[in-house]
């Protein structure tokens, strides 16, 4: 208690120092005066009386100092003093301070931004109850690739046979639907969910109720919708009376029963779901009729919750049994199936592990940049410490202990780090808020970069590390003041050792920036290579419009009419060369896997029928995209709704399933529709259809006229201005179907550039990021080099003056000063080359069409780096060369 009271009183005293000082002064003065009066009364002269009083008291100033020290917390006082002193120092050297804070801010900002991106993508759990227990599922059939989609009967089997290992599994499928209130439809992302969706996740509604466990089991039953929070806010103005209202989903009336809570965006990370409906309602969306009972329609995703105390391995063991049972019981659909369970955090993005590796590579690069920034600052601080040797020696001579001096220097670097970290956080917050407005192809992406504890902890760790790195070296060096040497030289010359340390640090900077520049150029050249790739289609002058007449309630007949009329009208527009439809189209991030049985092809034993990608396209699609049919014919008007079903396959399809045979005339059976075989009428040249970097894959294309699906992307090949073309097509669409939402309006090139997993977005972000890193590193290295050379020149002003007086030519001086810089570059460049040869293979997975030890890239970066580093050395050397010897000598 007493201790606490003392502490409080001392802390309070810290803040009331001026008032308490006055108080103390008054008290001491009144003491001396009263004592003087008493002495006068004893018969002394006034002067003698005052002298006696002061002697009795014994040192007024000392007493006041002891008093002050006892009054407040001593080390806090000293710290405040250090801080004040440091701030005064910063004000006197604004250039140094600005460079220091900016480079730290860049280093910490880059790290924080990158980490918050990774945090959002793979670390932040779903905002639901106990997210660590959630698992995702994927299934892989022998000879096929893993897929996250299941059929509803498979879901039922897995759910019922894993009780005990899992406390529950929910299922959902996603939809892109038209939601209309008062006639005008919006394109919305929906989840069709099993009744346990909300309860298993522990999500409570903010308004009304959620979908109940008893609902969603009947096809077309329970016409109700739970709105997403942001959609409710944006489109219903947060109206609480929305409960019970009727809205139309794809033209079908549904009742609003509730609103999901604000922080919940659906069971999938990164996507902002706008409405939740019972699973059975999926038949009004893209759901195939009968999907609740059909094992070959795989359109739902699963999310499970592990039972308490069950390990992932135990759950996986249980699923192995389930897989075997499925494989044995349903050989047609499920032979050779393996169901794999994965933690939701890692499974949320299909290539979670790759993403982690990518993240690790880039975090390492960002950390390297921070280290370079710290090296620079450490160098700057060392220069400052050297320049302050006289001051430090003076303080040491006046009794400042070494510990106290180190503390002063550490306070300085700590303050710099604080400012730098703060500026870095602000810069990062700004960058993140700019990035979070990214939209992908009209899909409401939910990018929540907001800084949570993890991000702040990461930034703090980076800052602490930076502070330690840049504080310790100069503090230890600077405080080891050699009093005699300083007195002798007047603090002008420093010993050789710090110089050597600084040179080594700059060599490391040059080498590291070499590596980062190599990575940046490799990625940039990969992007160039990617853009030059022969995609197998002509992506220039193509515009996309994604539409779904279902959204406004059209049935199939109306939809067919709408599309044929739309194509006819758009084709007659003056600037349109060609117009066509496709469900997915090239690089659309919308893969359509289809299990097929090609005529005469037998799967290897124990494997299911092969799965290939397919697309439904209208007659002129290949012409619009300039994809050549190399054999047989293209689709033509004779392939109408009632004609025999036909298909066109890719070259790889033909080679894989009918090697050495003429594919034209062969038939293909679909597993989901075995009664209508399809006849191949043509072969299309291979194209990179799904992803820009994919290997050759089998594809199958079928005509829209025979495979009606409401959701289509209209693609037009146009001449002239993009804006005019867009406006004209939109006018036609709205005049044909008023109120029909149109999404994803962009050119095909834009679409390819902005597609993450399939197009160039990944490579663009990677190369852009690496370029920023490389240039930052280069700038930091140049700064360091420039600093070392110009400082060593400044240190040798006296020597240069003497040499000039004794007849040295300016060229000799230049050589003298340049020497150190040349040495640094001469060691740094080969070291960087070596480092790049060793370390560049870490990006081998990221580069495209280029070797990580590409000699041209290495040579190019080496030449560039040599040129700029030499320039950075030359400028201070030239300044030294022009020195006036008299000025240089007088400088002493």
């Amino acid at each position, binding site marked *: 208690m007493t201790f606490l009271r003392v502490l409080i009183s001392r802390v309070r005293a810290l803040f009331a120092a001026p008032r308490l000082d006055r108080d103390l002064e*008054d*008290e001491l003065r*009144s*003491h001396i005066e009263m004592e003087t009066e008493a002495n006068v009364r004893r018969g002394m002269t006034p002067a003698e009386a005052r002298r006696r009083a002061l002697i009795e008291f014994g040192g007024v100033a000392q*007493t006041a100092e002891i008093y002050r020290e006892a009054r407040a917390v001593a080390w806090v006082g000293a710290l405040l003093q250090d801080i004040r002193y440091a701030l005064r120092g910063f004000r006197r050297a604004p250039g140094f301070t600005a460079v220091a804070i900016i480079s730290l801010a860049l280093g910490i900002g880059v790290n924080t931004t990158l980490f918050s991106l990774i945090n959002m993508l793979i670390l932040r759990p779903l905002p639901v109850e106990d997210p660590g227990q959630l698992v995702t599922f994927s299934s892989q059939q022998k000879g096929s690739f893993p897929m996250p989609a299941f059929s509803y009967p498979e879901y039922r089997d897995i759910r019922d046979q894993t009780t005990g290992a899992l406390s529950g599994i929910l299922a959902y499928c996603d939809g892109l639907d038209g939601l209309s209130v008062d006639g005008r439809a919006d394109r919305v992302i929906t989840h069709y969910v099993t009744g346990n969706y909300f309860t298993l996740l522990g999500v409570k509604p903010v308004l009304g109720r959620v979908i109940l466990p008893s609902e969603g089991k009947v096809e077309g039953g329970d016409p109700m919708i739970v709105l997403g929070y942001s959609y409710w806010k944006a489109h219903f103005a947060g109206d609480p009376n929305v409960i019970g209202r009727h809205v139309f989903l794809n033209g079908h009336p549904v009742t609003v029963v509730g609103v999901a809570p604000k922080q919940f965006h659906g069971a999938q990370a990164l996507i902002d779901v706008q409405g939740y409906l019972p699973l059975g309602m999926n038949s009004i969306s893209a759901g195939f009729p009968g999907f609740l009972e059909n094992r070959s329609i795989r359109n739902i995703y699963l999310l499970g919750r592990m039972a308490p105390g069950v390990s992932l391995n135990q759950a996986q063991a249980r699923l192995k049994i389930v897989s075997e049972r499925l494989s044995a019981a349903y050989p047609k659909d499920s032979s050779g199936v393996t169901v794999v369970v994965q933690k939701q955090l890692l499974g949320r993005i299909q290539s979670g592990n790759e993403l982690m590796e990518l993240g690790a590579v880039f975090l390492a690069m960002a950390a390297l940049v921070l280290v370079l920034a710290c090296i620079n600052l450490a160098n700057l601080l060392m220069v400052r410490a050297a320049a302050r040797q006289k001051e430090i020696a003076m303080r040491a001579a006046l009794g400042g202990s070494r510990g106290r001096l180190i503390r002063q220097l550490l306070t300085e670097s700590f303050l710099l780090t604080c400012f730098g970290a703060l500026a870095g956080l602000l810069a990062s917050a700004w960058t993140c808020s700019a990035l979070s407005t990214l939209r992908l192809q009209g899909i409401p992406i939910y990018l929540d970069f907001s800084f949570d504890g993890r991000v702040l902890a990461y930034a703090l760790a980076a800052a602490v590390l930076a502070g330690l790195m840049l504080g310790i070296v100069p503090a230890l060096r600077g405080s080891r003041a050699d009093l005699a040497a300083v007195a002798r030289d007047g603090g002008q010359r420093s010993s050789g050792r710090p110089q050597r340390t600084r040179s080594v640090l700059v060599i490391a900077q040059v080498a590291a920036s070499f590596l980062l520049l190599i990575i940046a150029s490799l990625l940039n050249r990969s992007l160039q290579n990617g853009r030059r790739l022969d995609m197998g289609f002509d992506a220039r002058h193509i515009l996309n419009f994604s539409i779904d007449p279902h959204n406004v309630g059209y049935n199939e007949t109306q939809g067919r009419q709408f599309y044929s009329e739309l194509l006819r009208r758009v084709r007659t527009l003056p600037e349109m060369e060609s117009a066509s439809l496709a469900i997915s189209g090239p690089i659309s991030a919308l893969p359509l896997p289809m299990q097929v049985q090609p005529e005469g092809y037998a799967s290897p034993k124990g494997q299911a029928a092969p799965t290939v990608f397919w697309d439904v396209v209208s007659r002129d699609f290949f012409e619009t995209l300039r994809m050549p049919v190399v054999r047989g014919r293209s689709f033509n008007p004779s392939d109408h709704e009632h004609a025999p079903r036909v298909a066109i396959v890719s070259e790889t399809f033909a080679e894989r399933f009918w090697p050495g045979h003429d594919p034209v005339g062969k038939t293909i059976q679909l597993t989901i529709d075995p009664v209508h075989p399809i006849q191949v009428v043509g072969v299309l040249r291979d194209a990179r259809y799904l992803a820009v970097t994919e290997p050759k894959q089998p594809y199958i294309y079928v005509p829209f006229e025979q495979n009606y699906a409401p959701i289509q992307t209209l693609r037009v090949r146009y001449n002239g201005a993009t804006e005019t073309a867009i406006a004209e097509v939109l006018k036609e669409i709205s005049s044909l179907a008023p109120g029909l939402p149109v999404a994803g309006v962009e050119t095909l090139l834009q679409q390819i550039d902005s597609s993450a997993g399939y197009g160039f977005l990944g490579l663009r972000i990677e190369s852009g990021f690496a370029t920023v890193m490389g240039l930052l590193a280069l700038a930091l290295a140049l700064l360091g080099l420039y600093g070392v050379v110009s400082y060593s020149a400044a240190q040798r002003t006296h020597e240069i003056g003497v040499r000039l007086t004794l007849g040295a030519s300016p060229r000799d001086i230049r050589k003298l000063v340049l020497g150190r810089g040349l040495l640094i570059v001469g060691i740094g460049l080969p070291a960087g080359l070596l480092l790049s040869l060793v370390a560049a293979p870490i990006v081998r997975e990221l580069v495209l069409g280029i070797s990580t030890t590409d000699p041209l890239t290495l040579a190019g970066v080496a030449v560039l780096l040599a040129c700029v580093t030499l320039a950075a050395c030359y400028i201070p050397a030239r300044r030294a060369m022009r020195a006036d010897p008299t000025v240089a000598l007088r400088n002493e």
Partner: protein
Amino acid sequence: MGIAQRIRQISGDLLQLNQGTLYPALLRVEQKGWISSEWRITENNRRAKYYSLTPAGKKQLEAETLEWERFAGVMARMLNATE
């Protein structure tokens, strides 16, 4: 000032404190909450700081006095015993 004089008086000039050391001591006792201080006017019409014992201070004084007496008693007995 009065405190220093009083100590000198009571001790019969045996305890001659350096008066300056009194102030840090007073501060420490005040921080512990055993005394309180206020500015008042003396009989000579001069502003001076008056210190007085707080209730907690009185209790502490009693405790310390007891402790001292015990200590002094023990010491006295020890010294007597060695005689």
